[in-house]
Structures are given as structure tokens and as C-alpha cells.
């Protein structure tokens, strides 16, 4: 494992060099790109699909597709942004597929899984929080955010994640959603509006508690 890490650090190829070598037939050169961009693609994927299992699948599939389509990659473009877009597209497909699978399952099974998803959020709150009360509040906030994102439509979630966390331009979002630029703008706006509606009341409560000095 350490040997692998060292080898990437030693090669230190830029993305452009790694792409060129991969296209020339050096499959191992693609590893530099995978190791360099996996973490950020994972963060994007996780925010889109909402669970680690699917996010990891999205990451793998994104790099597989990137490798297959590498000869279509324009040299001037940024590889990170390009693979983001591939990951976003696959994540949208995965969410649609998941939705159709979920609709065929019994409500009881879905309820159990939703409960498990909430538990995942709880387990992600970092250890070492100052007090159980503060931890409970962080958990509550994390659960609120998670729920708010889940309740967005796949297109809204994609648009918001790409715009807010991915730094993508509207044209890029429109391409991923296969929609017009104005429709993509509206989708981002709707997403932010829904998130405000979902999280606003909770934020107000926290603000009031802070003002009254009762925040834990």
C-alpha cells in the first residue's frame, strides 16, 4: 500500500501528462488520475446520492467511464471538472434507478432503510464534542440537512451540489441535466428555495436560542 502511494508521489505527473500516457497505451498512468481525484469525486457523489455505498459505486463507475471516453476528452479542459460531470450523470441515473427499485419494495423495508440512513448521519458527527447536548444538537442539524437534501428531486440535488459544492457553471449543469441554461438556473434556484424552507425554521430557532444565551 505504501509502495503504491510512494510511486504516485514520485511520478508527480500532471493530469495532462497522465492523460497523454494513458492514451498512448500506458494503462497504469491512469492510476495517477484516479488517486488524485477520487476523494473529491467521492465528496460530490456522496452529497448527491446521500449514502456511502452508492457514492463509492458512482466513483468507480465515473473513472471507468472516464477511461473509456478518454480519447473524447478535450486537452484544454480540466480533467477534474470532466470527471465530476461524468460522476454527476451516473449519480443521476443511480438515483433514478434507486427510486424505481424503492417503489417496488415494501414500505416496511423502506422505513428500516431510512432509519439506517439516519443512523449513518449520527455516526458521522465527529467524536470529542464538548457535551452530550451539543452533540445531540449537531446530530439534529445533520439529520435536518440530510433530510432536506433527500427531499430535493434528483435534478435539483444535482444542480445544487454541482453549483454550490462543485463550483460548476450553469452551462455545465445544463449539460448534465440535459436541459436549457434557463431551466438549469431555475432548478438551482428551486433547490436553494426548498433548502431554505426546510432548514430556515431550524436556523431561526438556533438563532433565537443563541440570542437568549440558551444555546447549548
Amino acid at each position: 500500500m505504501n509502495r503504491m502511494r510512494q510511486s504516485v508521489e514520485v511520478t508527480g505527473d500532471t493530469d495532462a501528462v497522465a492523460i497523454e500516457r494513458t492514451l498512448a497505451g500506458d494503462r497504469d498512468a491512469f492510476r495517477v488520475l484516479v488517486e488524485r481525484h477520487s476523494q473529491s469525486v467521492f465528496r460530490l457523489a456522496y452529497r448527491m446520492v446521500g449514502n456511502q455505498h452508492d457514492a463509492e459505486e458512482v466513483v468507480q463507475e465515473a473513472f471507468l467511464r472516464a477511461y473509456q471516453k478518454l480519447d473524447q476528452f478535450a486537452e484544454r479542459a480540466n480533467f477534474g471538472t470532466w470527471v465530476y460531470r461524468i460522476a454527476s450523470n451516473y449519480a443521476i441515473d443511480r438515483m433514478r434507478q434507486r427510486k424505481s427499485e424503492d417503489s417496488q419494495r415494501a414500505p416496511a423495508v423502506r422505513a428500516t432503510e431510512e432509519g439506517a440512513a439516519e443512523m449513518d448521519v449520527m455516526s458521522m458527527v465527529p467524536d470529542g464534542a464538548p457535551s452530550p447536548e451539543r452533540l445531540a444538537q449537531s446530530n439534529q442539524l445533520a439529520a435536518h440537512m440530510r433530510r432536506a437534501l433527500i427531499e430535493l428531486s434528483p435534478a435539483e440535488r444535482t444542480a445544487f451540489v454541482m453549483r454550490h459544492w462543485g463550483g460548476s457553471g450553469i452551462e455545465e449543469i445544463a449539460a448534465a441535466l440535459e436541459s436549457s441554461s434557463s431551466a438549469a438556473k431555475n432548478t438551482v434556484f428551486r433547490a436553494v428555495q426548498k433548502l431554505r424552507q426546510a432548514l430556515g425554521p431550524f436556523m431561526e430557532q438556533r438563532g433565537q436560542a443563541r440570542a437568549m444565551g440558551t444555546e447549548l
Partner: protein
Amino acid sequence: MKHPNEEELIAYHDSKLAGGPTDFGTEDGGDAAQREAISTHLKECPECKTELDRIDAVLAVLDSMPVPDPGEDYGQRVWKQIAPRLPEKRRRWWEFGLSKQSSSPVQSGSVWAASLHPRRLAAFGAVAALMIVAFIAGRVTTKHGTPDATIADSSKVRERILVMAVGEHLGRSEMVLVELSNAMPVGGTGTNAKQVNIAAEQRRAETLLDENRLYRQTALEQGDTAIAGVLDELERVLLDVAHSPQEVSAAQFETIRERIESKGILFKVRVVGQELHQRELSAQPSPGEGRATQNERKKI
């Protein structure tokens, strides 16, 4: 200027982050002017300023949403998982021996070591064997009958082979899950228990995980969403096991066990495994039987 609406304030927030004009504004080059106008308005209008602060606060809190850390070696793990599935680019098979000139020996060695790992070879060997058998079976059945009947026959044969392979896969998965459920922590049970070594189960889970992904994708492609659904649930549990430390604390072990039990995955794996076994035994089930078993499965 009149009060900006919510959409304009969100666009303004966006332009603040971008540090300049944004593509959210007008398309006739009026972005900068609009931004300036809103900025001036905000200095004079406490209501709009408060509204913008609320937008900023909600979006800022979303930035604090936890995302699990996949680990420092995540990139390497992704590479290990996808490397065996990457086809060679532009390289002919007879060039293989010469190609190492362009890549470092360390890189090539590690990748080939990864792809030649016994677990990977076992997983891909199983799938390759399945494909060969399906191909041969398809060839044998194509020697008789009309073209339509031939297509139907070969697709049935392929389906039966998939059924057989998935059935065996579920059997092996069931064994791992049962062994995990029955494992005992070293040093007693309950709160006195110390560590549980699940290294052996973990290795098997990793192999099963690779197979599981391929079978799930095949089942999805064939439209068998019920099998794909069970394989998907199984994959989550296998992933948990494969990603756990080799030695887990009694509490961590209990969490894994609870996860297996709470989702009833063991039961589902057994039921689908048995059903597949039945389907395998009845070489050519009547259409009525096929529908009946499918209906049974959907009840899971």
C-alpha cells in the same frame, strides 16, 4: 431600486462567492450592473440585508454537513477495484512485453500484482467460466430448431446458468453471514468481551463483493429487479464487513451482527437461494410455474 426578489438575492450570494459577476443574472452583460445595484440597495435596506443574511446562513450551514472520510488510501482502493476492469488502450497483445518502457516498473508491478491477486482471479475466473459455459450452451442449443425457438432456447440456457451461478453465490454469502452471526468474541460475551477477529470472513466478503456487483448488474440488465434488489442489500452488508478492521471490538462486531439481523438479509438470501435452486432443478419450468415463483419472490 426596488427590493430584489429571492432569486436575485440567491444570485447575489452566488456572485459574492465567485468574487464577481455570475451567470445567474441577465444574459445581456448586465450582471455586473445588477450586482452593483443590489449591493447599493443592501446598504440602505435592513430588511433585504436580513433576508440575504438568512440565505447566507442556510447555505453556510450546509457546508458543515458531514461527509464521511473514505480514508487516505481511498484513491488506491478505487484503483485496485477498477484496474482489472480497464481494457488496454491501443496496445496489441504482442506489444505487452515491450510496453513497460513507458511506465515505471513499480507501477506496473503493483497493478499486475493487484490484478493477479488470488481473490480477484477467483472472482473473475468464476465469471469468465460462467460466460464460457453460457457461450458453449448457446452454441449447442443453436444447432436445432427454428431461429425464433433458437433465440428463446439460448436465452433460457443463459438465464439458467445465471440462476445457477447466483444461487451458488448466495449459498456462499449465506455461509459467511451465518459464520459471522455465530462468531464469539474472544474473552467472553457481552461487555466483558474483547476483540473479534473477522479476517477470514472479511477476505471471503471481499471476493463475494466483486462477484456480487457483477451479478447485480447482470440481473438489472436482464430486468430481474427482485434478485437485483436482494443482491443490492447483500452488497451493503458485504461492504460493511469488507471495510471493517480485521479485529473489531465487541461493540463494533455487535453492530455488524445487528445490521445483518435487522434487515433480514440472511432470510432473504436463503429464500432467494432456495428458489433459485428450485429453478435450477426444474430444467424447463412451465410458464405457469415461472410466473408463480416470480410472484413468490416479489413477496420478499
